[in-house]
């Protein structure tokens, strides 16, 4: 397999992760499952950034920094997601997104 084909294959895997994560984040009713979908999307971003570093610009640290940022985004998303889940559950016993539609237009 040529290098370009390998890069394209890895990026296709990343695109599949983004697609699956998007489906999960949009379709799930449980707040925790929505967060899992978002994590899959960020997982795909991490894979794409890692592949871009190795196959395109290994002499620059930028793509590695993107992986670090994706990791941080994942940690922040999970911490804030669980904090918000606990807060809304404590206030109203809500654990599904369909029950928290106050801002729905």
């Amino acid at each position, binding site marked *: *397999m*040529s*290098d370009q084909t*390998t*890069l394209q*294959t*890895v*990026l*296709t*895997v*990343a*695109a*599949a*992760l*983004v697609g*699956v*994560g*998007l*489906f*999960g984040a*949009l*379709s*799930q*009713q*449980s*707040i*925790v*499952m929505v967060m*899992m*979908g978002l*994590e*899959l999307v960020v*997982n795909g971003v991490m894979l794409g950034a*890692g*592949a871009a*570093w*190795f*196959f*395109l*610009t*290994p*002499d620059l*640290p930028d793509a*590695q*920094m993107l992986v*670090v*940022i994706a*990791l*941080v985004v994942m*940690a*922040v998303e*999970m911490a*804030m997601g*669980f*904090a918000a*889940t*606990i807060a809304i*559950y*404590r206030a109203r016993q809500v*654990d599904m997104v369909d029950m928290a539609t106050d801002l729905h237009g």
Partner: protein
Amino acid sequence: MNDTLLSDPAVIAVVVLGAVSVGSGIAVFVVDSMARATFALLVSFLAIAGVLLALDLVYLAVVTALMMTIEMAIMAVFMIMFMMNPAGLMPMTMVHNGRGSAAVGFVAFVALTVGIWTTDWPSRRGQPPADTTRQLGEAIMGSHMLVMLVVGIGLFATILSGTILATGRGRYDRFGADLRATRPDDPTPGGLPR
């Protein structure tokens, strides 16, 4: 003589791990048990960590594997706390607008894939450094320090916000809206004054 960037075993490993990652990613939304969904997500992350390992990103691979293992362990606890069917003893789907969501996910995948396979990717520029971790460390402490400063402030804000959101009773609950109560209104008397 092999003149590709990745050796053949590494390419096979990347493809297999990529397939495992996508497969377990799909399993997250298919299995009935929330605990199983959490661990399917963990498998997906560990497979991606394996791919990063094959791509010479040793430090990031190890960080990903360790961080995600701990994160999923914590997540499993929350899943069991918040879900009505944590053990998967009965079939369960909790979805809304499943068909529309699947269409959006599929269209996103197809659009990205078409872009990936029709782009004329540039060839590799430069060589990877002898120590990729050192490259990242020097960037963090040098040319990309602003990124780490922003990340640090963001994480600190997350700590504060998480604590505030998770706190059941704050000072306004204890001392009134104007914070003028002389004695705190606690469920159990004996709280310290301000």
